[in-house]
């Protein structure tokens, strides 16, 4: 296990450098000058333009810029935003809890709905429920998030009035954030109704963001369950006269879930991609929206730093999943 972990951690180092190189190169390959974008139609005096570029270090050759960036990075400095002049790390830390909150809720939603649906579809293979749920999950998987989110807002917020349109909590609640996680902060604030407001605000964004993972989890659970249900040990369990639900939940599900765990690890990357759109629509102040804005404004330090931090989180989660996989899959454990 230790050796396995060690190899995985060593592998992270080149990946990390790969990410720095890619983000650094890609954003500079895209045309656009941060200084020009800062001043817009107003324009800027050429001498001042040159001075500002020099201040931002953009006048140096690309290789030199990259070397400076890596040197800063090793020293733990992610740089300052060109637009807000704030340290990139501070901005990330202020926004990241919002993204974690929405992502965790989305995953929980996906698991809470996806696993039971997958199980029932597998057990009742060929039934109307099977066809309907798998058809729906395919639809969910292929649905454009943008459109889906607006549809949910129109139905649940505007027409039915069940949920708020956007934001993390009603603007009327005001308390100093203690953790950055609105569910926890609103609970701690002790203001009556604050927690409920936070839950209501979280509902639609979580469903939107959780839709694609839900479809993946449901389909994965179903196919993996079908495979397991045909195994000899399941037949033996049935022959022993165990109750059908016990066979399914205790004997089959535990084994069927192993591939689902891997899928969850992979889904973290998908979640971040989805978070970009979900956050923009629901005015959710997370890192997705922040990164999109940094591309538009050619805010190089924010984009480089932000992508690197997000990549770090994805790598960390995948590492955890690998460890977890080893723990829950005895075969893998014994091989080592």
């Amino acid at each position, binding site marked *: 296990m230790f050796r396995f972990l060690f190899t995985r951690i060593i592998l992270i180092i080149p990946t990390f450098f790969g990410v720095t190189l890619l983000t650094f190169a890609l954003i500079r390959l895209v045309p656009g000058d941060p200084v020009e*974008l800062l001043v817009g139609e107003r324009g800027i005096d050429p001498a001042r333009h040159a001075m500002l570029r020099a201040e931002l270090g953009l006048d140096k050759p690309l290789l030199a810029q990259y070397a400076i960036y890596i040197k800063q990075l090793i020293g733990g400095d992610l740089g300052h935003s060109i637009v807000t002049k704030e340290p990139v790390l501070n901005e990330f830390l202020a926004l990241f809890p919002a993204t974690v909150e929405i992502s965790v809720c989305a995953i929980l939603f996906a698991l809470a709905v996806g696993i039971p649906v997958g199980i029932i579809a597998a057990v009742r293979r060929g039934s109307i429920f099977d066809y309907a749920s798998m058809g729906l999950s395919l639809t969910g998987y292929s649905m454009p998030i943008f459109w889906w989110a607006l549809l949910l807002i129109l139905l649940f917020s505007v027409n039915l009035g069940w949920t708020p349109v956007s934001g993390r909590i009603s*603007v009327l609640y005001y308390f100093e954030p203690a953790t950055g996680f609105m569910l926890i902060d609103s609970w701690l604030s002790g203001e009556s109704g604050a927690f409920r407001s936070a839950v209501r605000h979280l509902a639609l964004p979580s469903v939107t963001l959780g839709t694609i993972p839900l479809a993946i989890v449901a389909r994965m659970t179903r196919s993996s369950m079908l495979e397991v249900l045909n195994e000899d040990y399941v037949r033996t369990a049935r022959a022993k006269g165990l109750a059908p639900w016990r066979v399914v939940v205790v004997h089959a599900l535990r084994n069927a879930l192993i591939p689902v765990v891997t899928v969850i690890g992979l889904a973290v990357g998908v979640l971040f991609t989805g978070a970009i759109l979900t956050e923009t629509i629901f005015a959710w102040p997370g890192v997705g929206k922040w990164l999109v804005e940094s591309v538009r404004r050619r805010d190089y330090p924010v984009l480089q730093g932000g992508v690197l931090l997000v990549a770090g989180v994805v790598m960390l989660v995948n590492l955890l999943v690998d460890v977890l996989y080893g723990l829950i899959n005895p075969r893998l454990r014994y091989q080592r």
Partner: protein
Amino acid sequence: MKSLRTLAAFVLIGYSVSQLADAATLVFCSEGSPEGFNPALYTSGTTFDASSRAIFDRLVHFRRGSTVIEPGLAESWDISDDGLVYTFKLRRNVKLHTTKNFTPTREFNADDVLYSFNRQWNKDHRDHKLSGGTYEYFNSMDMPNLLKSIDKVDDYTVRFTLNEPEAPFIANMGMDFASIFSAEYADRMNAAGTPEKIDLQPVGTGPFQLLAYQKDAVIRYRVHPDYWQGKADIDTLIFSITPDAAVRYAKLRKGECHVMPYPNPADLEAMRKDPEIQLLEQEGLNIGYLAFNTEKKPFDDQLVRQALNYAINKQAIIDAIYLGAGVAAKNPIPPTIWSYNDDINDYPYDPDKAKSLLAKAGYGSGFDTDIWAMPVQRPYNPNARRMAEMIQADFTKVGVNAKIVTFEWGEYLKRSKAGEHQTVLLGWTGDNGDPDNFLHVLLGCAAAKGANRARWCHKPFDDVIGQAKRTADVAQRTELYKRAQAIFKEQAPWVTIAHSVVFKPVRKEVVDFRIDPFGGHIFYGVSLKP
């Protein structure tokens, strides 16, 4: 299962009462996050809404909803006969904000004015480099070259001496970058070793004071109880940052916000029909134009420029691109600006006349050119790409083959400034309501390598606007600008396309919200019906 359903119903439904029942709280669904809270450091309207227009005052103000200048923190001012010395008499008994980390020991005075300008102007000033220290507006208004000195005559008198006469100077003093900070707060924060708070948690004299900013989510202000013009009717002002226009509209419908900017043109009809919403509209202080690069052939020829003015069907563009939310432009300044010359006749749509003029200029068989189309939506041009296609079709009818060119926005600005284009679509939104801010900035010889995308330097025109810049007398300036507009029309360095109309949907309980010609959102003077 039943209890689960009950729980869900409790969580989801039990809250349908409008959340904005509190009459003293106004929520503005703003379109984006401010870059910061010091308006001198940034150039975007989003930042100005959140900073200068709520937290700060300036020496002079623009009357709410108009471009008329009125006294602000300066009660009155004198201009010397040579137009070089501006002496401002400051208002007394103006209280600064009291915040959790600052209680002022004195009222506003000349030191605050000196601090606010010297910080931007003087490179050796203690706080010049603070928060990045780029004062783009101060620089782009040419203040460093214009100012000779700023002196404190006494606690309530400040004298600005200029290097040359500049009539728009008073209007400049009303612009966002000229917002007045508290010098005492700046000293206190420096002494405490937290100078960054000067910009992050600013202290001004304005109608609202910043309470908290949750990045990308909510900005919260509370009323300044001792505001010198009287306490605002709104106790709490909230900016709920909502970047998507469709979502802003949903929030407005549901009562989650009272005012929203930048509606989708496609939603305007539904907004008009909604009894809960008032749709305010006003002509914007802007111009969308097609500039000919007069340094390149054949656009160095006035006849060609005039011909192409005749060739474009402006009304068709306004109907199709602005969806009625625009008016045809005949002058480079919008009709809301003083000195607008209404006697000018626009070039009518006349392809035959265009052809004959082209033939006269020696281009009877036409020529090849390009039309640059912006990649972004701007207040003065909702869809430049589509506009370019329509102009391209119009040009084809008179034998001119145009290729449409576009670049990423920053690149577009850079290359068009460098004069790489033959014709370019662009526009402008006014900063201070002065005609000089359009005519000199966009068409003067001094800007011919910069914001003047036509690269047009015509001495008779430049002399007239130069003279107007040096004259303080408004009647005289009006005559000069009217003459300048006539010269412009005849010389035709641009096709003036449209002034767009600005729409502002507000909920019906909002009282006396006025559309700001400068594109701002100002909540002092606004109240809510109970």
